[in-house]
C-alpha cells in the first residue's frame, strides 16, 4: 500500500530524480549549479553523492551547447535532465529547444524520439527584476512537439517529474521558486502523475478560477476570502500547458457560468487567451459573463518593491474580479495578510 508523508516541493524534486536514477541507469542530471554546494536551491540534493559526478554534474555556462548536448544524449539512449536556475537563462538555448528538440522526432519520420527533460526555475521577489522572473510557458506551448508543465504542489512536483523523465518527448518542466518550501502530501514510492489534464485544487460552484504556477496559491487565498461571504470558487490548476486538456475547465464553467484565468505570465497572446478561446468554444451558452484574464502588467518586471507589487497580479485582483462578475460590493481586504513564501527567500539570491 502506498503511504504518503509531508515533504517540501524541493525535496519532492530531488526524490523524483533520485528515484528515476536508481530505476534507470540512462537518467542523468546536469546544468549550471546542479552539483555545487547550493544544488539549485537544494532541489538536486543528494544526487552527486549517490550517483557520482558522471550522472550529476555542473557544466560550463553554455546553455545553447548544453541543450544540444542533451539532445545528442537523448538520441543515443540516455534520458537527460537539464536544469536552469532561471527560465530567463534557458532563453539562450531557444534555437536548440524550438528548432531542434521539438521537431526531431517528426523530422526523423517517427523513428527517433527525444526523451529529455528541461527543468527551469521562475524567480520572483527580492529584486529579481526583468531578467530573473520569466515563466513563458505559453511561448513554449506554442511549439508542437514540446510538452510543457507547471506543477504547483509537492505531489505534482514529484509525480510529474517522474513522468517527465519517463516520457519519450522533450518536456519543459517549469518550477516557481516560491513553491520550494511548500509542504504537502507526497506518496512514497513511484508516485507518477500523468502529464495531461488539470487538477481541481478546490471544488466550488459559483465561479471557476483557472490558475497556473504560483497563481494557484493566489487563487486559493482568494477563494478562502470569498468563502467567508458564501461564495465558493472552484480553483483549477492548469498544470499541463501542452498538451492542454480543457475538459475539467469546461465541466466547471458549465456549472458556474463564470471563468477567470489567472496566469503567471503576461496577458497579451498568453495562455489565458488560449483557455478563454477554448471556454468560449465549449461553454458559449453557459457563460453568464465574459471570460476574464489576469496576469502580469505589460511591462518588464521592475526591481523596486512598490513597482514589483504593481507588476504582479494576485489574490486581491482575483477577489475584485469575482465581486464585479457576481455584482457584489467590494469587501474590506485591509486586514488581509496574504501568505507568501518570499520570507524564506531573502537575498542575495
Amino acid at each position, binding site marked *: 500500500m502506498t503511504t504518503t508523508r509531508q515533504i517540501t516541493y524541493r525535496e519532492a524534486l530531488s526524490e523524483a530524480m533520485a528515484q528515476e536514477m536508481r530505476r534507470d541507469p540512462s537518467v*542523468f542530471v546536469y546544468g549550471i549549479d546542479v552539483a555545487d554546494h547550493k544544488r539549485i536551491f537544494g532541489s538536486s540534493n543528494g544526487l552527486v553523492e549517490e550517483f557520482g559526478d*558522471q550522472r550529476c554534474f555542473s*557544466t*560550463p555556462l*553554455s546553455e*545553447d*551547447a*548544453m*541543450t*544540444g*548536448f*542533451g*539532445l*545528442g*544524449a*537523448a*538520441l*543515443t*539512449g*540516455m534520458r*537527460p535532465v537539464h536544469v536552469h536556475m532561471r527560465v530567463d537563462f534557458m532563453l539562450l538555448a531557444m*534555437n*536548440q529547444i524550438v*528548432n*531542434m528538440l521539438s521537431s*526531431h*522526432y*517528426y*523530422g*526523423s*519520420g*517517427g*523513428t*527517433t*524520439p*527525444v*526523451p529529455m527533460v528541461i527543468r527551469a526555475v521562475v524567480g520572483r521577489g527580492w529584486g529579481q527584476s526583468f531578467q530573473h522572473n520569466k515563466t513563458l510557458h505559453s511561448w513554449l506551448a506554442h511549439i*508542437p*512537439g514540446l*510538452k510543457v508543465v507547471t506543477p504547483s504542489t509537492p505531489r505534482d512536483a514529484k509525480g510529474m517529474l517522474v513522468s517527465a523523465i519517463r516520457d*519519450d*518527448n522533450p518536456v519543459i518542466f517549469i518550477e516557481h521558486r516560491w513553491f520550494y518550501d511548500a509542504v504537502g502530501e507526497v506518496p512514497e514510492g513511484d508516485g507518477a502523475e500523468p502529464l495531461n489534464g488539470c487538477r481541481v485544487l478546490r471544488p466550488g460552484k459559483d465561479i471557476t478560477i483557472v490558475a497556473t504556477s504560483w497563481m494557484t496559491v493566489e487563487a486559493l487565498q482568494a477563494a478562502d476570502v470569498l468563502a467567508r461571504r458564501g461564495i465558493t470558487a472552484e480553483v483549477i490548476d492548469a498544470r499541463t500547458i501542452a*498538451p492542454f486538456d480543457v475538459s475539467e475547465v469546461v465541466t466547471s464553467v458549465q456549472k458556474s457560468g463564470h471563468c477567470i484565468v489567472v496566469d503567471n505570465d503576461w496577458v497579451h497572446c498568453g495562455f489565458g487567451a488560449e483557455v478563454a478561446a477554448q471556454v468560449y468554444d465549449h461553454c458559449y451558452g453557459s457563460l453568464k459573463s465574459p471570460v476574464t484574464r489576469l496576469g502580469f502588467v505589460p511591462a518588464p518586471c521592475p526591481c523596486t518593491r512598490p513597482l514589483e507589487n504593481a507588476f504582479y497580479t494576485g489574490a486581491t485582483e482575483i477577489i475584485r474580479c469575482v465581486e464585479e462578475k457576481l455584482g457584489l460590493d467590494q469587501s474590506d481586504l485591509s486586514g488581509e495578510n496574504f501568505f507568501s513564501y518570499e520570507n524564506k527567500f531573502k537575498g542575495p539570491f
Partner: protein
Amino acid sequence: MSAQALNRDLYRTVYLIRRAEEAIKENYLDDEMKTPMHMSMGAEAIAAGVCQALDRHDPVLGTYRSHGLYLAKTGESDRFFAEMYGRDTGMAQGKAGSMHLSAPEEGLIGTSAIVASNIPVALGAAFSHKQRNTGRVTAVFFGDGAIDEGVFWESLNSASLMKLPVLFVCEDNGYAVHIPAEQRHGYSDIAEVVSRFDCGVHRSESTDAEVIYTLTRDALADMSATGRPQFLHLKYYRYLEHVGVFEDFKAGYRPRDAFEPWLERDPVKVQREKVVGLLGEEAVAALEAEIDQQVAKSLEFAKQSPFPARSAVVEDVLA
C-alpha cells in the same frame, strides 16, 4: 584492407554521390523535387574519406548540405530520392526533404538546416557512448560558416574540457552563403586558433578521398591515444550555387578562374584515375554501370511512390 579494396570503396562512394547529384540536376527543373537543394558537388572526397575511416555504425551528424554524407553513410538511394520527391517511401515520409536527411539505423542521427546546430548534439552522443564504453566516435560535419556561431565555440570548449570522443569535420569552402571568410573572421587561421584548445587539429586541402581517409585515421589514432576530441579542417570548392543546382559565377562574388584549379583535381576524377590504375578500366566501368543503374532505379522508385496520406501531417509530432 588492401589498397585496391579501399580505393574501390572510396570510388564507389564518390561516384554514387556525384551520380546522384547529377540525377538531381537532370530532373530538378521538372519541379517534382520541391525541396531546396544544397549540393555536395566538389566535396565528395570529404564525406567518403571520413566515413570510410569511421566504423560503419559510428554516429554522424550533418547540415542541410548532406547529400554526400547520407550517401556515404548508407550507400542506398531509394529512400534518398523518395525523400527528395516528397514521397511516403522517403526516410521521413517526405517530411524532412533534402535539408533533414537521416538514417539513424546507419548512424546518421540527423542533419540540421540551422547552421552549427548539430555541433553540440555530437557532444551528447559522444558522452552517451563514452558513458557506456562502446568505443564509438561521433563525427559532426559543418561548414566554415558554423565557426562564426557561438555554439561552435561553446561546443569546442566543452568537448575539450570533457575529453569527449568527437570528430569535428569542418568542410571549408571559403563562403558562408555568399560572404567570404575575410569578411567574417577576426583571425587568419581557424586551425591555429582551435589548436589552442585541448583538441587535436589536422588540416588538408586535398580532393583525394584516400588522403582524407588517412588523415581521419590519424585523427582517430590521436583521439584513441590522448582521449582528446579532434578537429579536421578540410578545404574544398563548392561547385554550384549556395542553394540550387546551377553554377553562380555570373553573380560576381567569386571568379570562375578560382574554380579551374579545383576542377582539374576534381575528387571523382582523382579517385577514378587511381582505381583505373589499380583495377583496370573495365572493372571501373562495370562499377560505374552498377551505380548508374542503382540511381536510375531509385529515381523510378521515387517517382512511382505515393505521397503520404493527408493524415500523416499530424502523425509523429509527439512520441
